[in-house]
């Protein structure tokens, strides 16, 4: 009888441990979600507004011609920046140069993000009335034409294989304070990565700081809620690689506060001589 009880306890413990282990590893035996929407690391949909807390005079105003502080422009890039002529851009069909994929999210404004379909996120910006499409799963864009917003491949990032000692970054303490070796933690996706190419040449800033048609734009979107105010923000890190005009990749940031609705949505046309 006692032996039977012990075996019963053992069986329950075994089941429990397997159950917990399965949870901890995110149910590795489960099939991955069929769509990007189902696999979303977070809900980025809704209305968002820019909060301009840095580089204010570069974003809330049109900066002076030639002011490219904090941009690693090479000599060719400086030459192009020095030739900036907003009036010419406005009249020659190039007014959207500062609303291309690289500069768009630096332009103050509101965003509306929705799922266009299960594998495509759609980002509408009221500044310049532009639309970006983030395609998941490697599906090619319907058109190979270059455009202001280019072609954007998206993925939920963070769940990729570990780097070096991720998950083992030092020993751990067990509950009694002793050194312990713990099983690796499974990394879960927790950010949105968007890689954009095939863009028309445009501007990094409103004052004609150029990027070329060969530029590569990598963007990382992180979402968080503030424990004090309970507001939610998206923080964007942008890395622009453009050997034609930049000495080294340029890193830029922007953040957006979540809004309850579309109030304040203010679509504008592309304007070469206005901040938005």
């Amino acid at each position: 009888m006692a032996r039977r009880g012990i075996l019963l306890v053992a069986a329950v413990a075994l089941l429990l441990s397997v159950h917990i282990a399965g949870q901890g590893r995110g149910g590795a035996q489960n099939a991955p979600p069929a769509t990007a929407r189902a696999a979303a690391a977070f809900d980025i949909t809704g209305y968002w507004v820019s909060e301009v807390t840095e580089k204010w005079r570069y974003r809330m105003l049109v900066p002076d011609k030639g002011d490219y502080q904090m941009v690693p422009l090479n000599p060719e890039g400086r030459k192009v920046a020095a030739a900036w002529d907003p009036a010419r851009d406005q009249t020659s069909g190039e007014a959207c140069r500062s609303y291309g994929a690289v500069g768009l999210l630096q332009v103050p404004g509101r965003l509306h993000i929705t799922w266009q379909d299960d594998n495509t996120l759609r980002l509408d910006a009221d500044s310049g009335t532009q639309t970006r499409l983030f395609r998941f799963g490697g599906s090619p864009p319907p058109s190979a034409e270059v455009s202001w917003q280019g072609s954007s491949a998206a993925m939920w990032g963070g769940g990729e294989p570990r780097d070096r000692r991720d998950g083992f970054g030092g020993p751990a303490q067990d509950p009694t304070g002793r050194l312990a070796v713990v099983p690796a933690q499974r990394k879960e996706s927790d950010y949105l990565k968007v890689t954009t190419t095939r863009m028309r040449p445009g501007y990094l800033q409103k004052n004609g700081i150029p990027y070329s048609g060969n530029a590569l734009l990598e963007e990382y979107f992180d979402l968080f809620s503030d424990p004090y105010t309970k507001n939610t923000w998206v923080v964007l890190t942008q890395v622009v690689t453009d050997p034609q005009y930049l000495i080294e990749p340029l890193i830029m940031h922007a953040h957006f506060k979540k809004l309850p609705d579309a109030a304040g949505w203010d679509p504008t046309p592309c304007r070469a001589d206005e901040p938005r």
Partner: protein
Amino acid sequence: MRATLPLLALLVLLAAGAANAQFAFAPPAVDLTGEWAPRVYNTHMDIGDYTGMPINEEGRLRAQSWHPDQLDLPENLCRPHPIDHGLRVSVSQLRITNELDSETRLPVGLRLHVWWQEPEQVIYMDGRPHPSPNAPHKWSGFSTGRWERNTLVYRTTHLKEAYLSRTGVPKSPNAEVTTRMHRYGNLLTITFIIHDPAYLTQPYIRESSWVLDPNQVIPTYPCEITPEGAIVPAGKVPSFLPGQNDVLRDFPTEYGIPFEAALGGAETMYPEYIKKMKTMKVAPRTTTEHFRRTQ
């Protein structure tokens, strides 16, 4: 019975191993340790530039009374920035290492080291509480962290009174900073969320990035204090009395910004303010190339 006991022990161990939450020091989700080279903005460099900062009237008054010669007072020459600010200005080469308890050599968190003035910050991740509100405040405060998936999130309290910018915008000793460290491959983005009801009307959020640079060597930062009176006359504390800051209008005038906009405040952070600025007066500019001073 003899065969069953080891089996039970094994099962218990398995269950414990599966639930990492039981560990006093949670194993890191991502390895943040290493040498990180800065890719940092240096904005808010001009006196009177409070743009995009959600400061209130008290913060503005303190900022306007700040005089740049205060930096030359002996007590300020080697004064470090609090680390949330120090990480964003100057050449903020960053080293992150595992922090071990000095006696047991067991891990308790992470340590940050920055080149300029060599501030150090320990982020405790072993569950210890924050000290009493009456405990001493330090340049790097007291920080406790946790993992939110792959992001290190830590809260810093007990910071000394300091600045939000290099030009005197104040931060009170009661400020709290929530910091998020997110590694994207070899790129590290740190987001600072500053709460300071004494001088801010809402959280002040700003970001910076670093690039992994295993070969980076952070030099020492020797700092020498010149004797009192060597730069600023002894006994003098440079400051501007209210309404008497005669350089306050230089920044907005140089860059064609309405004076009111340069004074900051939460309203100035949002796109609607662009329209509002069009109704404001802007002082005539003498040149459009002031930026060349630092370019």
